């Protein structure tokens, strides 16, 4: 557990009048001002907006109104979620200075729940990366060891919570971009079921994989945030028409009688410390009454390949709109095609270009069947294998990341080495299943290890139930 106040404590205090939202926000802004120079969790701090919002929340309380379940809770937003009139950059030069004319659905919902946004957090450019080293505005440092990466792509959001800049932040997870940085920064990170949280206003990376979710210190805060941001949005055609369950209600149930799946054919590559902590997590659940079940998920191994064809393919199309015509960067040219090439060549960083090339190739005439088409079939196998596994267990448990936080620069020369960071997280994006990372003890160099819980579609409740048990029994 952390030294910082939780979202629940803050909301309770603010709602009862014991705490002033303006004071809470001021404390957090002070912490940010003191230490974010070193951490660089934020691309943009929303100090004025935050003070104004906090005052409005306090006024609602003073007037006897209901300020909402997240009253006065400071929230940091990954800088790929649109905020009306507030810079939204995706940590890319191509969007530097862009002010969205509309709010993402999650922003609207959190605002309605009384949350107070404190800033937009750094990420790997367009969420492509696992270390936040691909930001056009410089890397984010891991608050637990500033010589190491916070993970990525939601490294800024994970670091913001770990550093006490906000008890809650939102990230987006396309192949592990919430769960991996959560593991590396020692916080809770949740990727809900695909379609649980509206993607409207989330700047797309891989549209069939992207999902927004929270970073928090505690499982209970994650549940609270999910209750706020989940639920049907008619503005997103892929939004599931189901109301958000009362996730908080299941946290004390324990795991007695639950079956926890251990994947026997899990791809190798996790460090021994990570493997050891994961084994201990199984043991902890077992001693709390759960049954450990061995299952096979053969397609797991092919997830990485399928993912690195599907996500770049979708991204190559999603990022085509950055053409210098209507918004964002323009670098002039003699004709419109040259202008578009100049703009995109200057505006995108190396990793983004690499994935655009890869994705364009995978979709192009003559290669579609061999690459993109095959990847979609593996996706089907993955879904079938997981469905078969869920016949035998309620949730699956794996490491979140193959290693603890790694030093800056250690994987930047070999793109594929970086891609391996996502080995364990990718399958849940391909299947759409909910998955989360919970801190479970420390590994090498006293850095935190996270374990991943994967649940069947719409199974967030049982997933959170298991996470709460791991939180209670963590070393």
């Amino acid at each position, binding site marked *: 557990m952390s030294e910082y106040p939780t979202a629940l404590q803050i909301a309770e205090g603010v709602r009862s009048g014991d705490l002033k939202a303006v004071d809470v926000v001021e404390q957090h802004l002070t912490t940010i001002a003191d230490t974010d120079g070193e951490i660089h969790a934020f691309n943009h701090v929303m100090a004025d907006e935050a003070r104004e919002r906090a005052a409005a929340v306090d006024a609602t309380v003073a007037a006897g109104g209901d300020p909402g379940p997240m009253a006065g809770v400071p929230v940091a937003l990954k800088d790929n*979620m*649109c905020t009306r009139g507030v810079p*939204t950059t*995706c940590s890319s030069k191509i*969007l530097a200075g*862009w002010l*969205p*004319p*509309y709010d*993402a659905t999650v922003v609207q919902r959190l605002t309605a729940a009384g949350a107070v946004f404190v800033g937009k957090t750094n990420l790997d450019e367009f969420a492509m990366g696992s270390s936040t080293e691909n930001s056009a505005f410089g890397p984010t440092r891991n608050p637990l060891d500033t010589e190491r990466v916070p993970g990525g792509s939601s490294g800024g959001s994970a670091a913001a919570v770990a550093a006490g800049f906000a008890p809650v932040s939102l990230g987006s997870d396309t192949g592990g971009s919430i769960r991996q940085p959560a593991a590396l920064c020692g916080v809770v990170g949740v990727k809900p079921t695909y379609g649980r949280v509206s*993607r*409207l*206003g*989330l*700047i*797309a990376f*891989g*549209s*069939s994989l992207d999902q927004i979710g929270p970073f928090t210190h505690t499982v209970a805060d994650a549940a609270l945030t999910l209750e706020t941001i989940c639920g049907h949005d*008619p*503005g*997103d*055609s*892929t939004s599931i028409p189901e109301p958000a369950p009362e996730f908080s209600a299941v946290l004390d149930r324990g795991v007695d009688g639950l079956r926890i799946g251990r994947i026997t054919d899990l791809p190798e590559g996790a460090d021994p410390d990570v493997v050891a902590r994961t084994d201990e997590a199984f043991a902890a659940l077992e001693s709390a009454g759960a049954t450990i079940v061995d299952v096979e998920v053969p397609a797991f191994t092919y997830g990485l390949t399928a993912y690195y064809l599907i996500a770049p*393919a*979708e991204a*190559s*199309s999603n990022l*085509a*709109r950055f*053409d210098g*015509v*209507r*918004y964002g960067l323009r670098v002039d040219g003699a004709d*419109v*095609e040259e202008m*578009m090439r100049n703009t995109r060549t200057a505006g995108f960083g190396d990793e983004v270009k690499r994935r655009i090339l890869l994705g*364009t190739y995978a*979709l*192009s*005439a003559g290669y*579609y069947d061999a690459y*993109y088409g095959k990847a979609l079939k593996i996706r089907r196998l993955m879904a079938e294998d997981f469905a078969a596994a869920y016949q035998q267990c309620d949730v699956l448990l794996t490491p979140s990341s193959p290693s603890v936080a790694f030093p800056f620069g250690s994987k930047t020369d070999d793109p594929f080495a970086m891609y391996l960071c996502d080995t364990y997280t990718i399958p849940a994006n391909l299947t759409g299943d909910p998955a989360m990372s919970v801190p479970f003890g420390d590994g090498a160099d006293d850095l935190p290890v996270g374990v991943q819980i994967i649940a069947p579609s719409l199974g967030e409740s049982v997933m959170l139930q298991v996470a709460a048990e791991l939180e209670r029994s963590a070393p």
Partner: protein
Amino acid sequence: MSTDTNVTSETSAAPWAFEGYEMVVGLEVHVELATRTKLFSGSPNRFGDEPNTNIDPVTLGLPGALPVLNRQAVELAMKIGLALNCTVQPCTFARKNYFYPDMPKAYQISQYEDPLNVDGWLDLPDGTRIGIERAHMEEDAGKTVHAGASGRVHGAEHSLIDLNRAGVPLVEIVSRPDMRSPEQARQYVSELRAILLAVGASDAKMEEGSMRVDANVSVRRPGGELGTRCEIKNVNSIRSVGRAIEYEAKRQIVLIEGGEAVRQQTRHWDEGDGKTHTLRDKEDADDYRYFLEPDLVPLVPERSWVEAVRSSLPVLPSARRVALAEAAGSAPDDESIVTIVDRGQDAYVFAVVDAGGDVGRAVVHVQQAFAEFDAAPPVPAGDLAALTTLETGGQLTATQAKTVLAVLVDRGGGDPAAIAAEHGFEAMDTSELEAMVDEAIAAQPDAWEKFRAGEGKAMGALVGHIMKASKGQADGKLVSQILQQRKG
């Protein structure tokens, strides 16, 4: 209403051939649907507004924007499909990726592998059946104005983009290559337009771009292998459809006869010089990198929905032509029948008949006098019925009836008999007429002799004399009857 839509059967019957080649033509017609809002967002779908006022995050392709499908657009697209005898089927949307400044997302959301409507047909008025391969939904692009010296694409100094049209719902109707003459192509477009108007799916105005025709043209020896085809874009009127196809087919034949190969190209029809020009070669094949649109879900029209839409369809022009032709005793592709149905005035003709009018006279008057009106001409059906009765009863000549009808149009109706009286159109009794015939014979003995000798033409001079003398009030039919009697 342009005269383009009046198609005659004489020309269509003549098969097109040039230097022993026939043409093979398929048409791709884009129509903008008559919805209130765009295909995937709530911005107005409205022509002629100030530039860039009908815009929202989806239209602009803003980061984070997501499409949601317009139910009414689907329903109108289904109406088109059902009116074209298509099968309405479960379908998906795909992204067609290409960069163009008026295509905001750099991809068009279209239907690729599984379109909404497949395998239908359209019958031309003369009965020729043209296959419909598919009629799929997609979004329109914005509009580009080429500014600077020439005002054309090439040589423009810069271009200006208006996104009001971006995202407007389109249905692309792809025919099979079943047309063999420019006239058939014109008839196809004309008939398609009539169907679109009848079902209310589109205002189908070619001049405003809400109906746009691309033509795929190739030539071959009859029965021979299909030639390389070229796609002609920018055909902006029904008249140009015929002209462009004719020009293009001849161009290809001249190439082949000259020993050259036809290259697969996209060509542009220039209304000014009446030629097609190379837009781009298709050798460097377009690579649109189609894939399923992950921001949308499949559309699976339930049977009940399809049947409800089907039962809401009006009677289509082809069936209406048959009904009118049957009543009038003529052929469905008779020009008057085609024209009247095209204008939607067939119901009016039936109303005249119901009011006791003569169907033949009604058809003639409606075709001739109501060209500038739509389905509801300004003359009450009962009044036209009364007029035709005066004609068939011999109280008014055809010429007089025309004059009376012009007055009825002017006044928005009235009593034809009273108007005839105002004009002094009194039917002459036979004795009066016979006296006039005698007078004419006396005045034109030469003509009379020739007429008696069997020279039919000579009757004209005699009738003309009588008409002049009677100031047009004589009934021409009766006059010629009396002349025949006198001849013996």
